[in-house]
């Protein structure tokens, strides 16, 4: 990323979308909408002071909903460019409310609420589509009860839980526990506020609330002020009691140590995507190994039809995971996940080697979700005039692996089909090579014309 950001030959347009493309290989005209960030890129230093003071808290899509961000934000820490962006859906100022705190905080004077989208016209010789993919939404599979059972998460959510810079600092805390902790935090805030109110009454009347309330119940006071005090005290008790219970419960919370990974969630499934997503087997193995590194008592069971460890060193990695990182591989497709005691998901499956239907309780279940074609790709394909295949991946042919159906337009990475990092990187170089060939031929043509 940093290399891209610093390269003198790269003009990086983030938060931008291609709206129109005309012309042909060697001479395309592309119209790009550079969306308003409401932050001046040349002024913003990326210091982050604005995000610290912004009062609006928004669920963080980068943290897969497990964390929060502010309405003025970077997509993620150390992102390129470091320029912040204001989210127009949530910003109070942009929605007609009084705020502008970020503008007051910014020393670089970079906030500009009047910024407008810019339309750029670009002359390019070739185009590379590298639009990536989307993660399959597992709530489409009712029997896995994603979102219904809190401790069933997607592989990408689990990735965030494992990350040292993620919402739990790298601890595999269970979402059910995180929810209780969030509730405790909210209630504590409330309790603090109501305690403040009570303190005001106590000071005014020179008596502590508990003693007062005893007397009040004995019918000693009947005036408006004391009645209100009593009401506030009752409300305070109504918060304190569940808060204490929850805190007691939270003391027993421990990171999940017994994990299940379910392969082919949405892929190799005729109801959704019949294809194999290629990378998920290795991704699950990697996550299981890392979880075990974080907490050596962690064990994982990976449920899959075939464990497809096909790259360089992959089979060896898989075997090492089994020998050293507490991974058990079970051949079988999981039929259902139900809710067990203590928010533990119960996995029901057939062990096809033992030919038995079994049920096992886990502390957390991770769904290895399919690589779904990117939602935006249909629009991009229409603008470019390129064909998609039956699943909406960009159509290519095996003997021209990065050429789309339009000359001069190339594709790489998961926009073409599911693939892992090394393959994506290699394919990116291939697409760059094909794109450069077009540019070179164009130069030769131009020279010929001049001569």
């Amino acid at each position, binding site marked *: 990323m940093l290399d891209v950001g610093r390269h003198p030959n790269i003009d990086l347009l983030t938060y931008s979308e291609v709206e129109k493309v005309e012309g042909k290989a060697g001479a395309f005209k592309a119209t790009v909408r550079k969306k308003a960030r409401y932050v001046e890129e040349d002024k913003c230093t990326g210091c982050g002071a604005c995000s610290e003071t912004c009062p609006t808290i928004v669920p963080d899509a980068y943290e897969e909903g497990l964390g929060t961000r502010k309405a003025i934000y970077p997509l993620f820490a150390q992102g390129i460019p470091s320029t912040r962006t204001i989210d127009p859906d949530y910003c109070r100022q942009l929605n007609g409310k009084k705020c502008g705190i970020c503008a007051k905080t910014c020393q670089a004077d970079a906030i500009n609420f009047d910024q407008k989208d810019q339309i750029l016209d670009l002359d390019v010789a070739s185009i590379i589509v590298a639009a990536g993919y989307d993660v399959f939404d597992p709530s489409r599979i009712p029997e896995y009860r994603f979102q219904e059972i809190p401790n069933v998460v997607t592989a990408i959510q689990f990735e965030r839980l494992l990350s040292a810079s993620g919402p739990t600092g790298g601890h595999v805390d269970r979402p059910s526990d995180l929810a209780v902790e969030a509730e405790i935090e909210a209630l504590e805030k409330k309790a603090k506020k109501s305690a403040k109110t009570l303190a005001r009454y106590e000071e005014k009347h020179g008596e502590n609330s508990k003693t007062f309330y005893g007397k009040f119940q004995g019918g000693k006071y009947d005036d408006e002020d004391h009645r209100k005090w009593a009401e506030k005290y009752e409300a305070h008790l109504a918060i304190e009691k569940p808060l204490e219970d929850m805190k007691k419960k939270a003391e027993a919370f421990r990171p999940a140590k017994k994990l299940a990974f379910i392969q082919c969630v949405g892929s190799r499934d005729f109801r959704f995507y019949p294809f194999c997503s290629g990378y998920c087997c290795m991704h699950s193995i990697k996550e299981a190994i890392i979880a075990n590194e974080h907490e050596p008592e962690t064990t994982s069971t990976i449920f899959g039809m075939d464990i497809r460890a096909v*790259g360089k060193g992959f089979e060896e990695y898989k075997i090492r995971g089994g020998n050293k990182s507490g991974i058990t591989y079970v051949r079988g497709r999981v039929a259902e996940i139900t809710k067990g005691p203590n928010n533990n998901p119960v996995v029901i499956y057939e062990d096809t080697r033992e030919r038995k239907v079994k049920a096992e309780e886990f502390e957390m279940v991770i769904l290895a979700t399919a690589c779904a074609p990117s939602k935006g790709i249909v629009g991009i394909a229409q603008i470019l005039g390129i064909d998609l295949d039956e699943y909406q991946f960009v159509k290519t042919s095996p*003997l021209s692996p990065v050429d789309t159906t339009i000359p001069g337009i190339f594709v790489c990475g998961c926009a073409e089909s599911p693939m892992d990092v090394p393959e994506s990187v290699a394919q990116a170089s291939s697409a760059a090579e094909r794109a450069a060939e077009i540019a070179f031929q164009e130069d030769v043509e131009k020279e010929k014309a001049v001569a």
Partner: protein
Amino acid sequence: MPENNDQEIRIGVFICHCGSNIAGYLEMEELEEFAKTLPNVTFVQRNLYTCSETGINEIKKGIKEQNLNRVVVASCTPRTHEPLFRSSCAEAGMNPYLFEMANIRDQCSWVHMHEKEAGTAKAKDLIRMGVAKAALLEPKEPIMSEVCPRGLVIGGGVAGMTATLALANRGYEVVLVEREEKLGGMLNSLNKLGPGMNSAEAFAQEKIKALTDHPKVTIFTNAKVTEVDGFIGKYKVDIQTEAGIKKIDIGVIIVAIGAKPLVPNGLYGYDGQRVITQHELEGHLKEGLDREIKNVVIIQCVGSRSEERPYCSRICCQTAVKNATLIRDEIPDAKISILYRDMQMYGVENEEMFRDSKAKGVRYINYDPATPPEVSPEGVKVHHALLGRDMDLPADLVVLSTPLVANGQAHETSQLLRVPVDENGFFLEAHVKLRPLDFATDGVFICGSAHFPANIRETIAQGLGAASRASIPLSKGSVVVEAVISVLSNEDACRGCGLCVALCPYGALEIHQTEKGRKVHVIDVACKGCGVCAATCYQHALTINSFTDQQITAELDAYLGG
């Protein structure tokens, strides 16, 4: 220039808050006051973000207005930010190699978030060490070398032919060297290419014609590279051809020597007649299959995923499925069973081919490696791991899917080019994820099955990709390399033992015969400054010019003295 060594040393220290990344965990004012007390430090400043435009301008201002001739930035990591700070110093007229960094974020504030006092003390040590080293830094000039605009591709199979054409289409001269008498590599023995079922022969012919017609391509068949001398941009290569040795100047080299199918002698009664390899089946299919064949059993993982050869060869499952389908197409009443451990039909096209084969009646039988199938004259006996019982399958043809193994030439090529191979004899890329087509040695690239078994689509993509990587130095016309490199600082001490030469991962050292005897010579352009040689040299003859013994000792003294 302010970097004159005779001049008084004036060090400027810039301490970065990194927003709250550093300032949130360390006592910044204390660090500032401390830095002011250090020897040779004439200017100290704290910045919210030293890497921001404001911060950079402060550094430039400091160099100009305070006559600083050394700059120390105490902030994040040189991995991401040293290039920026160095070039900023250069823009202000200071030699960029007089810049030093103290990592008080990644190695201090981030790891000591809950220990403000101890973290601050450590940051002081890091700054003190940086300052001590900075005083001893020497100015250096970047090293530049021209690149000969010609590529060499070793191996004329799919990967090599693709890479050659791609480079030639970019306007560069390419020399393609093939050991066999004709181009095509494994294509010559294959039948149809999955999943498009294109004819391998037609595809090879098309590529060969394009190469032969291309004005920029020189092809040597029945030839081999016998000598490679030099480094990126300036290789001198000897090619042994039918017409004798050709000496050619080369700028970049692409390795595309492929791999070969394992011949499973002694496994499952392999005889090349009734029990053949998947690769041999390709030949049979190409020439037309014996129509009398009614029962075919294909066994997967023959000689792979075993103790002797632990890797999965990636492409054998898809090849087996492809050929099973082709047999069914040709002989519709033939019974075909594939005995497998895991069907490695990754991706969209493979899985589709897999489904298609099932629809066409190919049978799949899962076996456990603990109870492998047994081949006898009557047929194949297999324990069906999912049904839990033994099965006897009649077989007039048994096909063994054997892995691709490293080519016989891999070892020789590896030595010739001084690039590594892994434990399986496949070439080892510079970085598994980030640089899959590069070698650690600049100017040498890898593609195709010489790297690891790959199908046709992947091989073509890699061939294009390697050409793309190789074209970068060619299009620049020169390479500029980092001046932090190994130097023979004490020539007299060098005994020419060659220990460093053997250990250098980049082929950057050679032994020369000089007037003073055998001495090591550093090829500046190839050296990455990793320091392996300097650490190894028991004579202390070699040193890394920005990590000299003197500089490192000064750092240690500063640390221990504090």
